[in-house]
């Protein structure tokens, strides 16, 4: 009986930890959101970009976009909120609009096309995945554990550089 209780408590603890881990993966999922102020064509119709768009995320200006410009912000979670301050033409008074966008869990980088979003087009039109272009990098040195040829390490200070600051 006592053994059964112990096993039950252990299984429960594991289940609770798994549930918390799953919740953290959803709540804490980070995305890099890119905003494109670029004219776009959808189903044969062209949607022109405004003259200037100021993007506010978490009450801070994340980007100031003129035509064909891109800005970005980091966001945690799936429900992305932003406020756009839109100036349609040069000299116009800016109008403010709030938007909520559901970010897909599977995407790290998300591109939001602002003209398509302003035109109330479906999600497939304004939202796309940001795919990083692979840039050839020079081969990084094999990480060494402790050995370097500086005399400092002979006195046992290796690890300090890595720690930076203790």
């Amino acid at each position, binding site marked *: 009986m006592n053994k059964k209780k112990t096993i039950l408590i252990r299984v429960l603890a594991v289940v609770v930890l798994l549930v918390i881990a799953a919740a*953290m993966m959803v709540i804490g999922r*980070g995305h890099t959101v890119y905003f494109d102020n670029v004219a776009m064509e959808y189903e044969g119709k062209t949607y022109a970009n405004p003259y200037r768009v100021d993007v506010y995320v978490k009450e801070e200006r994340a980007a100031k976009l003129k035509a064909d410009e891109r800005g970005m912000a980091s966001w945690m979670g799936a429900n992305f909120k932003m406020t756009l301050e839109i100036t349609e033409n040069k000299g116009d008074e800016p109008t403010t609009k709030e938007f909520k966008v559901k970010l897909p869990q599977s995407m*790290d980088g998300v591109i939001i096309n602002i003209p398509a979003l302003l035109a109330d087009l479906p999600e497939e039109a304004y939202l796309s995945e940001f795919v990083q272009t692979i840039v050839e990098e020079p081969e*990084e040195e094999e*990480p060494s*554990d402790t050995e370097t040829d500086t005399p400092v390490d002979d006195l*046992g200070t290796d690890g300090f550089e890595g720690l930076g600051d203790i």
Partner: protein
Amino acid sequence: MKNNTTTQMSFGKKLRRFLSDNPVPIMFIIICAVCIPVSGFSPGYLLNEIMTRMGRNTFLILCLLIPIMAGMGLNFGMTLGAMAGEIGLIFVADWQIYGIPGVVLAMIISIPISIVLGIFCGKVLNMAKGREMITSYIISFFINGVYQLVVLYMMGPIIPIKHSSIRLPRGYGIRNTVSLLNMRQCLDNLMSITIKGVKIPVLTFIIVGVLCLFFVWFKKTKLGQDMRAVGQDMEVARDAGINVERTRIISIVMSTVLAGFGMVIYIQNMGNLPTYTAHSQIGMFCIAALLIGGASVDHASIKNVFLGVILFHLMFIVAPSTGTKITGDSMIGEYFRVFVSYGVITVALTMYETKKRRIKSRAGQQLKADQKGDEADE
């Protein structure tokens, strides 16, 4: 008059006893008292630095208390937990989990790894009773090799790592440094307050406080009492029906799991993970801090942890600047703080052994005197 002399004598004796009982903290208080004015740092700056470092290191140092309670000495094997915490952080960085959820997830990932490593370490230490410290020190080197094998060769081809930003350009292995910018100081900044320019990481201190309360409660539980009994005398504990081996393994597992949590807290404060070096000296620094706080191989308390963190890190902050001011060479200060941390471990361990031998010798002399007295009576 006689009374006054007696009081003075007892005060002198008390003072001498106090000095002989706490030579390491006193030595460090003197070093800090000399170095602080020379360094030229303002009290506000020093206080700010101490607060940051207390939040960063205290949890890690607290994890050393349980093995000491169980009579296993200073657990150099805490490095194993630190490695488990780092593996958790690598996964969290790859899965792009930001902020506090990232910290919590890294801690959860570290738990099973810490438990497995803790059980392994505990079992090996049970085979090497009486030589736990040196054994745990060598185990940490061995597991460091396994960690490097996993992180350098298995992460990528066997363990999926998606992001090229943390993978080495050759396609497998993790880069020397993993950026954790999206979780940098997330624990420290949440609920933090600033008083006269001194930032106090309230949430981190609450977590440390909860761990301290846990220790106070844990000492009173049956398992806590068993650990103390095992720590005092293994044979007596075994005769009392305590499963000595199991109790010792549990103490190491608890210490390893807590070290994993502590490492996650430590790294989130730094904001980047030096993949191959972050854990290498962490055990040494934590043990040095605990010993500076007045702890010994067989006795340590929460107050030793706090005093140790303050003194050790105060010395770390002021020593380079003092060295530069005195000698005109900043490297002298760097050398100073390195050899002091190693030196203090040596001194503390030597003093512990000397004290133990002296007590044994006094007990022997007392026994001899008693026997002589008995013979004279007969």
